[in-house]
């Protein structure tokens, strides 16, 4: 009896050790690849010092230090190239909680999680306005609601990319929206953003004058993200379409349930049907500023939102919270697949890793969130 128990314990221990070794080996291979990618990125930076961003403020070079006030960061106290130089994806969404959850999800999906106790730190806690989490090459930021809020974040993130000398970063907004003629739960990838008067331009007022900027989003990026959708396995539809970006949730989106309302249900219906006839699939409140600013900076951008209701059928959100929570994860899953696909496009090479690569992993520098995994791998 006792011999039998000892034997079982030994077997279980052997299994666990085997599993742990496999996990550590997989993590080491992942880290080796990431390190190699980072080194390649650095080499490219050294070779061609010009940034891929363009249209930027010529005065940025002179700002010493540059204070990213709302992020609570500045170039004097933080070494941007060292901390953020490896960033390849910047994902943003409305609420801090949702983006923190997404950060942990990405950590899991790109294989950076070593153990359940790994904790992410809000890098922008000092700024008090936005949350910012870094998961290896992925930054996750909350942007609040509306174009005024997201435009502040975008200016400061774009400056961060510049100071950190990031190479070809991709910006992706993930969120919720009201749908137009689509089944609730559908994921809409925006082709372009249009304003409340149905023009594909973002108007800003500069020095007392109206200035308009084009608001198309990157077509190839939208297609790449859509290709990550599996029509058979996924229980929802993913479509590419136009997005109305309203600056007002109630009147700007033609709701009947605001504090005041001066149009009839017939007028509202007519407006929404006009939107539908112009291939508008959803309404949200940030895509214009996002599209215009990323485009002006030569940054590929995408907006991926789930529709939580069909506005042709009503104004108020009646879906239970637990269903909404599931739907909110859909754009996150899709975007995580895209990121994984880009990072591991050479997945077949996994098994051919050499031991020297693992040694290379041990020598890695990298960002805040990667030090712990390296140490534990050792």
């Amino acid at each position, binding site marked *: 009896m006792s011999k039998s128990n000892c034997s079982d314990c030994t077997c279980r221990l052997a299994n666990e050790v085997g599993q742990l070794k496999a996990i550590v080996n997989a993590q080491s291979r992942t880290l080796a690849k990431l390190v190699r990618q980072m080194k390649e990125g650095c080499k490219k930076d050294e070779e061609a010092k010009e940034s891929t961003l363009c*249209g*930027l*403020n*010529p*005065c940025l070079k002179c700002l010493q230090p*540059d204070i990213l*006030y*709302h992020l609570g960061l500045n170039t004097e106290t933080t070494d941007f190239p060292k901390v953020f130089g490896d960033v390849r994806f910047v994902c943003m969404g409305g*609420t801090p*909680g*949702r983006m923190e959850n997404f950060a942990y999800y990405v950590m899991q999906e790109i294989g950076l999680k070593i153990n359940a106790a790994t904790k992410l730190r809000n890098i922008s806690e000092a700024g*008090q*306005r936005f949350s910012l989490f870094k998961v290896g090459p992925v930054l996750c930021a909350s942007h*609040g*609601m*509306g*174009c*005024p*809020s997201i*435009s*502040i974040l*975008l*200016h*400061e993130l774009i*400056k961060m990319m*510049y100071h950190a000398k990031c190479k070809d970063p991709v910006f992706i907004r993930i969120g919720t929206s009201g749908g137009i003629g689509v089944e609730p739960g559908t994921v809409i990838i925006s082709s372009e953003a249009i*304003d*409340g*008067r*149905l023009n594909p331009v973002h108007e*800003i*007022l*500069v*020095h*007392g004058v*109206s*200035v308009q900027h084009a608001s198309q989003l990157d077509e190839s990026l939208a297609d790449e993200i859509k290709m990550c959708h599996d029509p058979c396995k996924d229980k929802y539809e993913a479509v590419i379409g136009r997005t109305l970006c309203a*600056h*007002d*949730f109630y*009147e*700007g989106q*033609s709701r*009947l*349930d*605001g*504090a*005041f*309302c001066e*149009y009839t*249900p017939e*007028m509202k219906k007519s*407006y929404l049907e*006009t939107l539908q006839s112009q291939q508008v699939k959803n309404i949200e*409140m940030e895509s214009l500023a996002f599209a215009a*600013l990323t485009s*002006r*900076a030569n940054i590929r951008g995408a907006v991926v939102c789930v529709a939580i209701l069909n506005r042709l059928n009503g104004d*108020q959100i*009646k879906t239970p919270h637990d269903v909404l929570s599931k739907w909110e994860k859909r754009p996150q899953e899709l975007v995580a697949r895209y990121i994984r696909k880009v990072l591991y496009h050479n997945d077949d090479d996994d098994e051919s890793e050499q031991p020297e690569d693992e040694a290379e992993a041990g020598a890695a520098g990298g960002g805040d969130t990667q030090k712990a995994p390296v140490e534990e791998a050792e």
Partner: protein
Amino acid sequence: MSDKTVELMNPHLETARSDYLYHLDINVANTRDTSELQNRFGDVRVICMGGTGSRMRQLALYLRDILVVSESGDPVDLCERGNRYAMYKVGPVLCVSHGVGSSSFSVVLHELIKLLKYARCQDPVLLRIGTCGGLGVPPGTVVASKNAFNGLLRNEHEIAILGQRVVRPAQFSEDVIRDLLAFGVDANDGFQTISANTMGTDCFYEGQGRTDGAICEYSEKDKMEFLQKCHDLGIRNIEMEASMFASVTQKVGVKAGDVCVTLIDRLKGDQITITIDQKHEFEQRPFFVVGRYIKRLLQQ
């Protein structure tokens, strides 16, 4: 006693059986019998609003002291499940966060105004409390806004409704401004409180003429010309919510005021360089002014 509750100009709300204030996560199950909401919120006289939840929590703690509201422990965020805004109640005062900018603020403002109606609050006053850039006034100055100008330097707020441009006037309540200065100011404050015009823009960087944004297509000279033009209009502070806030409250006929402390004099630079300690001290100043105003208001 006359009824001074909020009247809404939305005929559709009269016919709706229920209403859901989604971003606040407050359900009005039966719009014809709102006794539950009246019990919870009917005593509200003032709603204070500011950008971040943490600052509204600090304001709640401050007001708890000066209004002698006997509550202990952490203030409870009544809208936590809504995930978007924070709301704290201190006796007859609500403290609610509104995020950054007019878009975010307009969402919660509509829902708060509906809440005031359903709860049948009497003669409410809405106050925004925050930080801003100054224009020809030293950092730390508290400004009570009079007329709110938009980025085109017009005293109005514009939104698109059903694809058309709609323009509304944007002035704050004269009696609120008068009383803020009469009762909110103390000779020993150590800082100045003034009434002046305010510019509310939708863009912090280009819209406010900063030269330190990620993208900037004008010169320092252009910027100074613009800021001087603002100054000539009596504008002494720049922020991002005033014109929308004034226009919506004016349209509904609710009293409102906007009280912000300046963190920088934009005629002298674009980047905020005060220390963190100074910032915390400055942020308290509108609390003092608004706290005294509320205390006096509740005594009437």
